[in-house]
Structure formats: structure tokens, C-alpha cells
């Protein structure tokens, strides 16, 4: 009777996969630990280049200041100038921080900021949309705010009614300090309005300083 082949090991494939996964894990761990060690060894000193040798140094490395009696004084003056520079830089940073704090303190309690929004060109009877961001730069969190708009007015007095302007979302959630919200503005242009640029503003209840200029170009 011929010898039968041994029964295939049903787990052999799984073992092979696990072996490759283990190899991946171990190789990756080796590479990352080597990189971390390299980072520790590569920490730079205060200067990345060797400072030039002191031309007044003697053969034993001691400076021969007696050859140039004014040198110590010049070095001392240089050190003092550098210290003053650092002190000045420190004071400037302090003043910058104080100025920033004062600006925040003196600003409106809930000041909103936003970009300018330009839409169009679009034809009368059409519709046009655009996205923009509203940012609250400072002030306390506010209650949910509803977006509104003024009428959009052209130079000849033609207007687009605020009812033609829609927002998504129409109501902003609670606005935290230094947060931002993207909005989509859609304007349905009435039939028969005169071509040209129309201007107006987007406002929000609860954010009295928020005023986003809007410009829409109506084409012929």
C-alpha cells in the first residue's frame, strides 16, 4: 500500500500569516527605537559649528591678555551689550503680551469676525451660493444665534429683499471663545432686477459686533 501524504495542517496558513505579522511588528519596533536613540544622541549644543580659536591664546590654551590690555574690556562690553539685547527682547515680549491682554480687555464683550463674502456672477431669476467662516475672537460663550441679513442694495437704489437670502445652518449653536463656524449663504435673485453689484451685510442675533459684508454680482 502506498504511503499516504500527511494530512495538511489547517493552521499552517494562519501560522505563516502570524509569523509575517510578528516580523512586521518586530522590524518596526527596531527601526523606531533606533530612531529615538539617534534623536537623543543628536541633541545640538548652543552652536552647531566650532567656535574659531582665540588668536590671542598661548600654546597652553591660556589667553595672553597682557598682549592686548583693552581686549578684556571689549569682551566685557560685548557681554553687556548681549545681555541688554536679551533684556530688551524679554521686555518687548512682555509688552506684546500686555498689549494683547489690553486689546482683549478693551474690546467688545463678544466680538465676532468674519471674511468678506463675494457671490456671483449670476443671472436674474437664478440662485447662487457661497461658503464662508464666522469666527468669535474673544468674549464669553454666547447663546445660540440666528443669522439675518440686510437688504442687498445696488448703486442705482435697486434692492434684493432679505427674504431672498437663506443660511445653512440658520441658527448657530453655542459659540465658544475662539471658535469658528462654517455657513452656506444662498441668494435667490428676483426676476427682472438690474444687473450690477449689490452690497449688504449678514448679522447675527446675540453677536452685535458681527457684520459680514456681502457682495453679489448680478449679470445681464
Amino acid at each position, binding site marked *: 500500500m502506498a504511503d499516504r501524504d500527511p494530512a495538511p495542517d489547517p493552521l499552517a496558513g494562519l501560522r505563516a*500569516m502570524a509569523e*509575517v*505579522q*510578528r*516580523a*512586521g*511588528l518586530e*522590524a*518596526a*519596533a*527596531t*527601526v*523606531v527605537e*533606533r*530612531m*529615538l536613540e539617534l*534623536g537623543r544622541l543628536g541633541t545640538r549644543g548652543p552652536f552647531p559649528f566650532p567656535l574659531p580659536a582665540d588668536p590671542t591664546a598661548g600654546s597652553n590654551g591660556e589667553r595672553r591678555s597682557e598682549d592686548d590690555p583693552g581686549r578684556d574690556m571689549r569682551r566685557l562690553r560685548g557681554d553687556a551689550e548681549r545681555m541688554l539685547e536679551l533684556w530688551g527682547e524679554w521686555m518687548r*515680549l512682555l509688552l506684546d*503680551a500686555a498689549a494683547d491682554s489690553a486689546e482683549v480687555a478693551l474690546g467688545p464683550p463678544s466680538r465676532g469676525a468674519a471674511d468678506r463674502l463675494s457671490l456671483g456672477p449670476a443671472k436674474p431669476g437664478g440662485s447662487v451660493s457661497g461658503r464662508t*467662516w464666522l*469666527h468669535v475672537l474673544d468674549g464669553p460663550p454666547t447663546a445660540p444665534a440666528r443669522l439675518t441679513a440686510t437688504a442687498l442694495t445696488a448703486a442705482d437704489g435697486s434692492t434684493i429683499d432679505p427674504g431672498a437670502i437663506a443660511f445653512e445652518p440658520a441658527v448657530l449653536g453655542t459659540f465658544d471663545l*475662539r*471658535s*469658528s463656524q*462654517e455657513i452656506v449663504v444662498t441668494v435667490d435673485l428676483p426676476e427682472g432686477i438690474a444687473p450690477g453689484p449689490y452690497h449688504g451685510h449678514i448679522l447675527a442675533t446675540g453677536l452685535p459686533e458681527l457684520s459680514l459684508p456681502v457682495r453679489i454680482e448680478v449679470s445681464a
Partner: protein
Amino acid sequence: MTPLEVAPVEAELERYGALTGEALRAYLPEGEPRRYLWDLVADYPARGGKALRPALCLASTVAFGGETCEGLPSAVALELLHNAFLVHDDIEDASLLRRGHPTLHLEHGVPLAINAGDALVVLAGAALRDNRRLLGSRLATGVADEFELMARRTIEGQARELGWRRDGVRDLTADDYLDLIMHKTCWYTTIHPLRVGALIGSLGRADLDALVRFGFYLGAAFQIQDDVLNLVGDQSKYGKESCGDLYEGKRTLMVIHLLSETRGDDRRTVERFIALERPERTAEQIAAMIALMREYGSLEFAREFGLGIAAAAEDAFELAFADVPDSPERRLLHALIGWMLERDS
């Protein structure tokens, strides 16, 4: 803690991408010369992308206790620098497609494309400078140091890969591949964004070494999946030139595996292919290489190798984020481990 599935991860990436894209546009000059410079500079950022880097940076900023807006200039700088690298890489690799469209140098010529890449680097510097006003000198200097380190690592990795290709280097191991992608890809794709976000969010208190480990495992899983998708992915979703890595002679994990496993005629076929210049490589040769990869299990090897690294990423995440409270941002960063291996674009 509820894990995020792939679709919500992609929605979050899109959200961070939109936020960063909006801020990035503010750094793009509007003056002249538009036709020869600024239109080119705006091109790659406008093509979109996965926005993985800004998402990691911003989510890490918030997870470690900061505000989204505090990480925004760094996220913008990272995107600008990423796009600068892409423009120059596409020239170095003679790539044809980027995000589904012809590469910048094919559309405008090599000299103008190189100059546009340089401009993107300069604009990244402008975004970084804004950190000083936003974060203060100490933290801004820390972030700038991180950018210098990241750029250095990336350039070192790119030099190594270009050198291997120029010299026809073949005796490479999986360890060499991981060392390459640590420098070339992982540092700027995952490690750096996570570290910068943690630095900003924690006001400099986070353990940045722990993020090197997590970032590397995450980035390696990303890169291996990217290499596999380049060969067998759906090009309509993937966006880059199908099999571009093979045409360019890149030493991917699959190529290294094939070089180590083949013998006789198959080995000689692979070696001859590796020795060719890009214009000499044909579609038939590419198909033969992929057939060999299937026969020798190189694709499966890469996938399993990536799974092992993803397992390491799970452990590294728990260590790196041990002191970080639960939040949607922390959950997103964790969910990215699975997403890296499951994504198809």
C-alpha cells in the same frame, strides 16, 4: 469608548481638510505674476487630498487640551510644505498624475514647477511665523524646531530612495524599507503632525517620544497600504498613476519581498526590470511583475506585515494617549489605525 467606522473617519478628514483649506487660501498671494507663479502655487492645494496631515495636527491639538484655531497655522504650514514636496517629488519621479490630474511639471514645464514648489516652501514659513503671535515665542520656537527636524528627516529619506534607484541597489531588506519610510513618509505624514499638535495642545508638556512610536506605526501602516493600492487599487479612487511605483522603480515592500524570494529565471526577470530606466518599462513588463508578486505572495506578505505594524500601533496609542481624556478627537486618532488598512483611496 465608541470606535469610529471608516465613513465617519473620512467625513472627519474632509471637515479638517475644509477648515485647513479655507485658512490656507488666506496665505496665497493675489498679485502678479499669476500665470507663471501664483496660479501654479494654488493648483495642488486646490486639488484636495485626504487631508490626513492637518487632521492629525488639529485633532492632536484638541485632544491634548488646545483649541482648533491654535493648531491652524501649523496645519496650513504642513499642507503647504506637503504640496511643495509633492511638486518636487513629481519632477524627481517623472510622475504623470497627481490627484487625478496631470502633474504640475507636465502642465507648465519643469522650471516653472520647481519655482512654484519653492514658493510653497516660502509660504509655509509665513504661516509658521504667525505661530509666534498666536502661541507666544517659546511654543512657536518649539513648533519651528519640529518643522526643521521633520524637513530634514524627509529630505534624508528622499535622498536615500533616489540614490537607491540611481545606483540600482537591490540587496535590501524589510528593515531597510521601514527605515526609508520612517524618514521619507512617516515623519512628515504622521509623526510630525501628531507631535506638533501635542506640543501646542499641552503647552509643551506632552511626551513627544511616545508619539514617535505611535506616529511611525500609523504612518508605516498608511504607506504599506498606499504601496498596495498603487498596484491593485481602483485608480478612479486612488488618484495617482496606477502602478506608478513600479514604473518609477521604487523599492516598495513588495519589490523587496520579490527580490528576496525569487530564484532562477524569475529572479533574473525581476533584476532586469529593476535595472531599467523609467521610459524603458512597458505595460507588459509591469503586468509580469504583478503576476510574479501574486505568485510569490508578495502582496499578501505586505498586507500581513502591515497588520503586524497596525497591532503595534494599537499598543503605542494606549501609551501615548494614556493621560489624554476621552474626546471625539482622541477617538478619531485611534480610529485612524483601522482606517489606514481598510481605505481604498
